């Protein structure tokens, strides 16, 4: 991968590249912007030359020859430009999907946006406001939602952005970042204090992170999920140890391939699990009765996040057939 020289990065006004993803996105950026500048300059230059060469010198114009482009030339030009643009698209697609698709074994942080702050909850149960703490060199995954209107989580130094949508959980994967502090902006207009909905990603090196981890005093976020599951009656139908009750067990559920009663097979990810909480009968697991009520509006974002963490924490409890690696 070509690395963008610092000079070019400064000329383009780009912030520091804190992740490998940011560096590769910047290379494509440089290629596309250079093409744009060269293309525009060529159009301007050819126009200028034609104007100099064919400028009208007399008062009244004389007849000019009739020149019409050949079909071959039209197709050739169109195809060449199309090939260039599709090339941009292809590289962009590969980068875009790499941002979306997390490898397993990453750190997970739950993000809840609300007017006008960011709340981060970690697997050990701690939470922080507006400051996201992660370990340098370790990829991490953000599991995000919003409590009110649409916000957008934007870290320029990572070249990533993701809308947080009320009622929906979306994931965002961040490559191993270099130690440092990077600003977070809200990028989707969310009201009067939109421009003050700022935050900071604090990427700590190994030693500092260890210190930060030792400060943990809370019970784990999964333990909180267990409380939520118990108090909302989830556990009477969903066992935590692999037993089959009225509903599937949470053990080994996360990331597994789940056969549905209509024959489809889905992967039990955040989107599927949260959808099943609010609309359980829409995608019902095969072999279970249609009896779960909707928990629409009954769980807060924090409680839903805790349930997700509980289910995630049990992913390796009971290996099931057909796990996604």
């Amino acid at each position: 991968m070509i690395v963008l020289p610092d000079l070019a990065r400064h000329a383009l006004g780009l912030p520091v590249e804190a992740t490998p993803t940011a560096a590769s996105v910047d290379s494509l950026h440089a290629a596309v912007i250079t093409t744009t500048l060269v293309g525009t300059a060529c159009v301007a230059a050819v126009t200028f030359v034609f104007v100099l060469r064919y400028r009208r010198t007399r008062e009244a114009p004389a007849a000019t020859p009739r020149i019409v482009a050949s079909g071959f030339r039209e197709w050739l030009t169109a195809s060449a430009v199309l090939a260039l643009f599709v090339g941009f698209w292809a590289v962009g697609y590969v980068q875009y999907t790499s941002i979306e698709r997390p490898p397993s074994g990453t750190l997970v942080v739950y993000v809840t946006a609300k007017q006008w702050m960011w709340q981060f909850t970690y697997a050990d149960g701690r939470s922080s406001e507006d400051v996201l703490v992660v370990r340098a060199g370790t990829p991490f995954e953000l599991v995000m939602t919003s409590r009110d209107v649409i916000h957008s989580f934007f870290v320029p130094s990572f070249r990533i952005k993701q809308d947080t949508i009320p009622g929906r959980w979306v994931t965002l994967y961040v490559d191993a970042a270099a130690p440092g502090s990077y600003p977070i902006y809200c990028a989707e207009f969310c009201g009067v204090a939109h421009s003050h909905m700022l935050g900071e990603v604090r990427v700590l090196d190994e030693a500092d992170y260890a210190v930060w981890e030792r400060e943990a005093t809370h019970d784990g976020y999964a333990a909180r999920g267990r409380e939520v599951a118990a108090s909302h009656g989830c556990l009477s139908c969903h066992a935590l140890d692999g037993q089959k009750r009225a509903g599937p067990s949470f053990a080994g559920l996360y990331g597994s391939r789940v056969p549905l009663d209509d024959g489809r097979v889905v992967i039990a990810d955040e989107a599927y699990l949260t959808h099943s909480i609010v609309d359980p009968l829409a995608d019902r697991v095969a072999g279970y009765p249609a009896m779960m009520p909707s928990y629409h509006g009954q769980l807060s974002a924090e409680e839903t996040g805790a349930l997700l963490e509980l289910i995630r924490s049990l992913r390796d409890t009971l290996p099931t057939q057909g796990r996604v690696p």
Partner: protein
Amino acid sequence: MTALPIPPGAAHDERSFWTTATTIKSWLVTTDHKRIGILYFVATTSMLFLGGIFAIIIRLEHLTPGPTIVSAETYNRLFTLHGVIMVWLYMIPSIPAGFGNFLVPLQIGATEVAFPRLNLASFYVYVIGAAVVIGSLFAGGVDTGWTFYAPYSARTPATVLPTLIGIFIVGCSTILGGINFIVTIHTMRLRGLGWMRMPLFTWTIYATSIIQILATPVLGIALTVIGLDHTFDWGLFDPARGGDPVLLQHLFWFYSHPAVYIMILPAMGVVSEVIPTFAHKNPYSYRAIVYSTLGIAFVGFLTWGHHMFVAGISRFDAAAFGLLSMLVAIFSAIKVFTWVGTLFRGSIELAVPLLYVFSFFFLFTFGGMTGVAVATMSLDVHWHDTYFVVAHFHFIMVGATFTAFLSAIHYWFPKVTGRLYARKPALVGWALVTLGFLVTFTPQFLLGNGGMPRRYYDDPVGFSVLHVISTMGSWLLTLGMFVVLGVIVHGVARGAKAGPNPWHSRSFEWRTASPPPKRNFVGPIDFNIGAYAYDVADEP
């Protein structure tokens, strides 16, 4: 060559449409497409200045970080109304309803449009809609941005409803105008004037009209559901009650992306007329311009999802919308190559309309290529909702469409008024507008690269110098616009007599008197020589 027949209804009255009746009432109840075009021109240009005032205040606010002259609440209302007024009240109707009304019948040899009274009605529907939108200012204004994203638009304490109703009414006017042009172009072309001999401006108005009648109803749906949600708390976009906030984005952009082509296609039509006239040369490929116009109109309906790359749409959707967006860029690139090729071996007169078109070349190519850049998915993730996007679409909306609008004003000035504008002040206006535009919007690309989100009242850190340059550019642009206004007013009042065809154009609208008589043509019309037949020595 034999002359084509006199169009039905052509009279022998040679007096111009300005002088046949001069009372105020004769203007207010006119069914003459030329007068309706002028009414539209005056109304939409007034809206341009109103939207411009908001823009100036927005830029002033960014002169310093933190509060400068307005509060955050006011700022949010200003950028919303700037967008609403510029998009719906100025840009969408300006070229089609203003210049289109005046020119399409002249370019196809018709004496009027198919539905003259409907044409007048569409103008008044527009005026009512515009009045309601402006009236919403006094009801407290709206702070959602012109995109009305839910669920913010359902929850905001601001009064959303009057603005929505106003835009809805303007949408009805857009549909009526579109129907009128389509029927006119299909049924009222002079006998013998085939589709592929039509002037290119009329082609773009035709394609624009199709988009108008197909896309605008979807805008109506989107505005209606937002209104119901905000006023009666229906919860259509409230996830706590089973609604989906992203659904609105699909509805909104299904209209609003094609709407971009409602704004740019007529501008491309202007360019396609101005270049052959001042290069005194046939278009390098008439066919390519026509087909790429229709291609943009069609593919424009299939690209809306590129506004939603970070809104949680699926990978497949993102890939499909990204690829289809590249097709629009191809059609635009074909046009640029064809326009530049038209200059080859021409007889180029560096008149003011052509200089505006050269500005258009540069700004449209750069703006269009940055469109390719933001359609590249991984790059858009960084740029989405930053000033880069603001700069990109202002290069298209202002750099291309507004520049073409100014080109059109200068080019058809003698046609409409029978007079010439003063050339030197017009040159000054062109230079100021182009320079002012570049100084205003080029720094915004860099702001976006740096990560400055749009719709930010405050300036987080470190972007200020670029904001100051951009604000100063907006003063230059404003100055340029007032110079242009002065040139127009002076030209109307004191301009020298122009004669019927001062640019030696071959296009059909120049084959009658300037200004045209009330019924457009007197006596038989000769359209046998094509609209771009510059290899013929004699003027038709």
